């Protein structure tokens, strides 16, 4: 049978070890639970499988067929072919977690480079080599704050994604950490700093600020926020969009203790939302409290430079019930995409890319605002996502756009009832001026109906 080379050697191998039938190997399974068969289809050949999957694939419309302006933290980006070429090297993608350093130097070095580049982006001294996604990374950060300072309240802005809120609640329940939400300012779309000031005190384990936030708005009161956090002896957790850091200050420069973020946009395909890449970086003093794998530089027995996993005593396979996290499998290959992509960009490329994303964001928002019935919801400066309030029902608008093969903005009033008829738009470097004009003309059409 395909992929099972010894299918034809069963008899011979059984004989060699003194057994008669395959079922002798399963004689220790109680009779009442033995099954003979699974109720599944018979296997298909590779050719038939290809055909079947093509048919299923045809029921999707990829973002090459559908012009997308949807926001929500996940957007299409250009991925240079070098990324696929590197991560398809099967010595990389068919390898396991690098427990045997001597046979894993390649992947270990790449992960060391990934950690170094993430640390350059965040301007914090250290980074791990990935968590599942930004959502679980935030949850791990909350747990880590509480491990560090033994406090039990964690503050988040009201306007983080539903996914983040829900996962945070689930992850922190066991550690008995309370989550407190701070409302956003309905004028600016930024965190309501007065409310933050009122709620912050010496019992707060950590405060999470997203920059840009879920509405795409830059939290520019960052220095004041940092002061409030430091004065209350709490920890400052910052969420980043790595692609904004070509033009925006790194969180380490304005006081962050821990940085989390989603690294999907660093050379990883959207893949319907998964896989993903949880970025996690922090100050060196918290090294031993950090969750996830860390790669370190050391030497071999002849004194030559070598890499290995380090501080494994924090991890589940050594520390078991007292590990910093239960994480084992992570997102290694996505981190490899990220290090390849970042080195392809270089510092020049990253700056350019951030700038295009920012400028496209400004350009699109301005153009939409010129159309009757559409208004920018918030006055704060945004990056490449922004909220538009529509006079008409946004659901109907999106239906009209879809007829023209355009995916409109994300409806967000289901999560934020204050934002009725609001849509979250997103744009990136892949959108040309023609794409923008295409959307604008169709929106004008909708507004005139």
């Amino acid at each position, binding site marked *: 049978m395909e992929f099972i080379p010894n299918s034809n050697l069963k008899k011979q191998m059984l004989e060699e*070890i003194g057994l008669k039938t395959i079922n002798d190997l399963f004689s220790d399974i109680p009779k009442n639970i033995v099954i003979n068969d699974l109720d599944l289809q018979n296997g298909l050949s590779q050719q038939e499988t290809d055909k079947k999957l093509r048919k299923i694939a045809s029921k999707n419309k990829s973002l090459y067929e559908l012009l997308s302006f949807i926001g929500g933290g996940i957007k299409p980006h250009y991925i240079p072919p070098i990324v696929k070429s*590197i991560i398809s090297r099967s010595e*990389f993608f068919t390898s396991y977690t690098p427990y045997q350093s001597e046979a894993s130097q390649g992947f270990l070095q790449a992960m*060391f480079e990934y950690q170094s580049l993430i640390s350059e982006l965040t301007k914090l001294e250290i980074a791990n080599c990935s968590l599942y996604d930004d959502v679980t990374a935030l949850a791990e950060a909350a747990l880590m704050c509480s491990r560090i300072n033994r406090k039990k309240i964690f503050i988040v802005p009201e306007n983080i994604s539903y996914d983040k809120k829900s996962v945070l609640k689930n992850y922190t329940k066991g550690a008995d950490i309370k989550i407190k939400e701070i409302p956003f300012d309905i004028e600016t779309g930024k965190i309501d700093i007065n409310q933050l000031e009122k709620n912050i005190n010496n019992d707060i384990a950590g405060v999470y600020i997203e920059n840009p936030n879920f509405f795409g708005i830059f939290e520019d009161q960052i220095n004041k926020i940092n002061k409030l956090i430091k004065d209350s002896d709490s920890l400052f957790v910052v969420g980043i969009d790595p692609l904004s850091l070509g033009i925006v200050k790194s969180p380490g420069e304005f006081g962050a203790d821990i940085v989390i973020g989603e690294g999907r946009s660093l050379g990883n*395909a959207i893949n319907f939302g*998964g896989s993903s890449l949880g970025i996690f970086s922090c100050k060196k003093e918290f090294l031993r409290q950090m969750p996830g794998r860390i790669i370190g530089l050391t*030497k071999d027995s002849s004194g030559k430079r070598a890499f290995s996993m380090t501080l494994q005593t924090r991890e589940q396979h050594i520390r078991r019930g007292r590990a910093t996290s239960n994480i084992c499998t992570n997102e290694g290959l996505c981190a490899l995409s990220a290090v390849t992509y970042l080195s392809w960009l270089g*510092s020049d490329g990253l700056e350019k890319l951030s700038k295009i994303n920012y400028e496209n964001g400004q350009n699109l928002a301005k153009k939409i605002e010129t159309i009757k019935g559409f208004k920018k919801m918030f006055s704060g400066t945004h990056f490449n996502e922004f909220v538009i309030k529509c006079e008409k029902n946004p659901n109907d608008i999106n239906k009209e756009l879809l007829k023209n093969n355009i995916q409109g903005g994300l409806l967000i009033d289901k999560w934020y009832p204050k934002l009725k008829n609001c849509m979250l738009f997103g744009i990136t470097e892949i959108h040309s001026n023609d794409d923008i004009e295409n959307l604008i003309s169709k929106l004008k059409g909708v507004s005139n109906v």
Partner: protein
Amino acid sequence: MYRSAMFDEPLLNEIPSYKIDKIETITTLPKSLQRAKKVDIPNLDETQIVRHFNHLSQINYGIDTGIYPLGSCTMKYNPKICEEIASWDSFTNTHPYQDISTVQGNLEIMFELERMLCEITGMDYFSLQPAAGAHGEFLGMLLTRAYHEFNNDNKRNEVILPDTAHGTNPATVTMAGYKLIEIPSTKDGTVDLDSLEKAISDKTACFMLTNPNTLGIFESEINRISKIVHNAGALLYYDGANMNAIMGKARPGDMGFDIVHLNLHKTFATPHGGGGPGSGPVGVKIKLEKFLPIPRIVKKNNNYFFVYNAPESIGKIKGFYGNFSVLLKAYIYITLMGKNGLQEASEIAVLNSNYMKEKILRSKKYEMPYKKLRKHEFVLSCEKLRQEKGIRAMDIAKRLLDYGLHPPTIYFPLIVKEALMIEPTETESKSDLDKFIDALIRIADEDPDLIKNSPKNTPVKRVDEVNATRNPITTWNMI
């Protein structure tokens, strides 16, 4: 003779490149956030980058290089067709929030995969959201809590597991806020029913079990275990890391398990990617369905929908819907294998393991404590070699590298001294198994100094991991 490729490959930041710090100011950006200088990333040419990473790949070992018999990791061959199809634009370039009518193919795959996994495990419903096995375990604990809380059974704050459990099990239990109770194994290497009876009470939320367990032994008393656990009002959790032993032979659902997690990157042949991405779907019996994460996928009139309205649901444990690209590869794998193929995979995985075990034990160089019949993996002890020659499991692992073979898992499970935990999987040929067997036997007779100073044929010699932890250097700025 085997000799690995070797490069003194510089770090990315050591490759000659140019750098300009100066950044162009964007005046419309808020002043407090304007960058003063560029992010320090080397500016390299594409050729330099390709060569750099290709060199690195050549000093890395994967399944495509050779046998990879890590116990409990199920390092089987990853069919190329799964990678190929999963890289099609119509899958990779779809957005989780795009209109549902334009992603019916994705939903069909997820819906059908849930049904397939239910059939393979004997469970009623599946959630595909967890990104890894440990993540699935964590969801399992959340479901356990939700179930007991729903029944107003609020004093259950303990989780029991055997001392052979994977490290993720106890870590998950603690992370979920439960008190951990570990029970010893019998001299057979299986769950000690007396200890279980003693440990279990009206405070027990759940008993976590791997079956076959990490010694590769099938827990034959599973019917009684299930009865003890359920009579106490607790739930029975199945760690599916070892599912590759029993597909088409027995199902956790039929054994009485209430919650099951699978590792698609083990049993269902999706690549491990040097650490991930993985996928750890969780299956439950009907009594736990209402607590599963949202959204659920529903099929109505040949159309698929996401359903978010589930008041008792625990909510979410990951962004969006899980690692879809991994789910897709597993779906393709199951499609290729079909019912016969999956059963054959488990049969040959178990045959290969018992073949190796028998051949190695006949050499009398290694010992194997506990019960003799094993499933897809077995655990040898090098304790005799340690006592006679001072050779440790670690030394043997490193010496295997000199033969161009990836070593097994070592020092686990903890109840075996100097453990070598070997899982060949069904995708290795007899000649590759024989090569590994021969090497392991030959090493036992080699000069102890040679073994202790191995490896020699690898790109680096034995790596000083103690120093890596004592003086942690984790970025190039710390060098």
